[in-house]
């Protein structure tokens, strides 16, 4: 158990840093996605707003869901939430704590995307170019256009190559104006998020520290218990498989002996471990039959109980109690045939 204890301590102490690492990687991935994405404003009156706001808001939603999907603890939360009460009461505070800590980590990548998008300015320029105040920024001397015409001209602001309204309003002036608004919004958004994070983190010790310690302990406990249960089941499965396979080989060996009418040879006292490990199968034909039988007719998932205690086994064998399966095997062979 020492090895498992060390592994679990490692996971426990590093579970938080592992999740923080995934969080950081997703934030970097979101900036990389943004710089790799080829933003292509349609420059048409009604499509600009939809495109710009879509690029601003849809990828963060995807990143948020991805943050939940990549978090291993989501299945633990769902299991704890849906399990029947049984003999152990459910604590909603623990569920809330688990959900909040997962949601906080999942929020980081979307916030990074929205900040980077706003600070870059292309999305807002594309989405709101038709709302630029032409009266204040444009040339007053230009003849009036109809509303539709004006919209079409302004919609082309993000596309410098096809912009034809230089006399109405200079392209650089409009782009600088929109970008200034976008960057101001971006910095305000980042400031707001940072202030919220600061308040959440600093108000907690002031108000609910005891409840927080309790929820944190029990959420870690649920996690460790689940891992330990999986480990115990794996150990059980290993022992089960070992005994099942030994019983299979014993069965094979007994069948072969019965088929050939050989007396069971008493293994010499100094045969050593090699003879024991051969499990009574000592030639190619026998081995091939054993393999074929394993494939065609796997044994039932049911272990035979030991027939008798090992008081009166082989005299000369002197099996130490640490290898209980070995005396059991030889005892079975002895009692089946003699």
């Amino acid at each position, binding site marked *: 158990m020492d090895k498992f*204890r060390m592994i679990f*301590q490692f996971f*426990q*102490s590093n579970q938080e840093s592992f999740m923080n690492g995934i969080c950081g990687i997703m934030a970097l991935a979101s900036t990389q996605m943004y710089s790799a994405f080829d933003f292509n404003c349609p420059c048409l009156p009604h499509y600009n707003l939809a495109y710009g706001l879509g690029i601003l808001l849809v990828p963060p939603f995807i990143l948020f869901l991805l943050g939940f999907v990549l978090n291993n603890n989501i299945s633990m939360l769902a*299991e704890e939430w849906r*399990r*029947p009460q*049984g*003999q*152990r009461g459910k604590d909603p505070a623990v569920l809330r704590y688990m959900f909040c800590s997962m949601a906080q980590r999942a929020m980081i990548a979307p916030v990074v995307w929205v900040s980077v998008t706003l*600070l*870059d300015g292309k999305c807002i320029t594309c989405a709101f170019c038709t709302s630029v105040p032409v009266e204040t*920024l444009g040339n007053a001397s230009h003849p009036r256009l109809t509303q539709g015409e004006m919209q079409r001209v302004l919609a082309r602001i993000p596309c410098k190559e096809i912009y034809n309204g230089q006399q109405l309003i200079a392209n*650089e*002036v409009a782009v*600088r*104006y929109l*970008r*200034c608004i976008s*960057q*101001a919004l971006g*910095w*305000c958004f980042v*400031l707001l998020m*940072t*202030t919220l*994070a*600061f308040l959440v983190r*600093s108000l907690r*010790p*002031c108000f609910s*520290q005891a409840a927080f310690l309790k929820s944190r*302990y029990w959420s*870690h*406990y649920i996690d*460790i*218990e689940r891992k*330990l249960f999986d480990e*115990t089941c794996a*150990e*059980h499965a290993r*022992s*089960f498989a*070992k*005994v099942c396979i030994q019983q299979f080989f014993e069965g094979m060996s007994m069948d072969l002996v019965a088929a050939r009418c050989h007396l069971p040879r008493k293994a010499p006292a100094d045969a050593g471990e090699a003879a024991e490990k051969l499990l009574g199968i000592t030639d190619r034909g026998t081995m091939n039959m054993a393999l074929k039988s394993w494939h065609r007719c796997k044994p*039932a*998932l*049911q*272990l035979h*109980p*030991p027939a*008798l*205690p090992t008081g009166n086994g082989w005299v000369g064998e002197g099996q130490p*109690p*640490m*290898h*209980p*399966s070995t*005396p*059991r095997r030889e005892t079975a062979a002895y009692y089946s045939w003699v």
Partner: protein
Amino acid sequence: MDRFRMIFQYFQSNSESVMNGICGLLALASVKMYTSFDFSCPCLPQYNMAYGLGIMFVPPVILFLCGLILNRQSLVMLEEWRRPQGRRKKDLAVIRYMCSSIMQRAMVAPVVWIVVTLLDGKCLICAFSGSMDPEKFVGFANVSTAQVQQLLAKVPCKDDELVRNSTSRKAVSRYLRCWSQALGWSILLILIIAAFLARWLRPCFNQATLLQVRHWSNYIDIEQKIFEETCCEHSRLFAHKCILHFFESMRQEIKLHSFTLPGEGKGAEGEEDFLWGITDQDQVNKLLKTWYYEKPPLDVS
């Protein structure tokens, strides 16, 4: 216990260096943020000042808050400040020491941003080009008042058609940049002198109190880490016991229902420990189902 001792000595010696490392990373991050940020002055009379000063002062606030959030010791300090007195008296000097060390580390990144901004000059040029006195510059002296405001506001934008080749624009720009860089270097010099004096003169005042206060602030930090470690260890042992009890109760139930003779099953002690008397598929399925539908109570007495 040896292992724990080594781990805690590591934490003791490295708590300060971890915090210094985070501080340094934030300072580098602030320089990187400034260089990758695409500064784009609006070049409009009412908007320049707001934009320029906003870029100079809003990111430092954000970096300061980030410095507080990322520093683990700020939580420790807050807990110590807000805890009920109980049986342990609170020492305000310790809380003050922790607070000042946290603030000093959190101030590094904002100061780096402001200094880099001033040394670069773009923010100040953007913010104060509209406040210049047009009489001092030849190209702007003979222009009407309304127009001069427009022209001055366009100084930060080199490529704007109105001021593209204007020597007066370059003059204004150079003038403002000179002031900006002088301010930047002065602030840097003052801060370095202040830090130097603080560090050299500190041992002259209250050294004994300082040693005590530093010791107890380290103590509070380590005590909290050890408490978390011990809780983890305890919850692992608790879970281990709980699962053992569960498997044992399953074994009892199976024994009860399968009418086996009491003498059997005593032979193979080693494997029995791992098999728990659960030796076929149905029993395993029942165990797993019971684990889900009826988790054992949290009671290992």
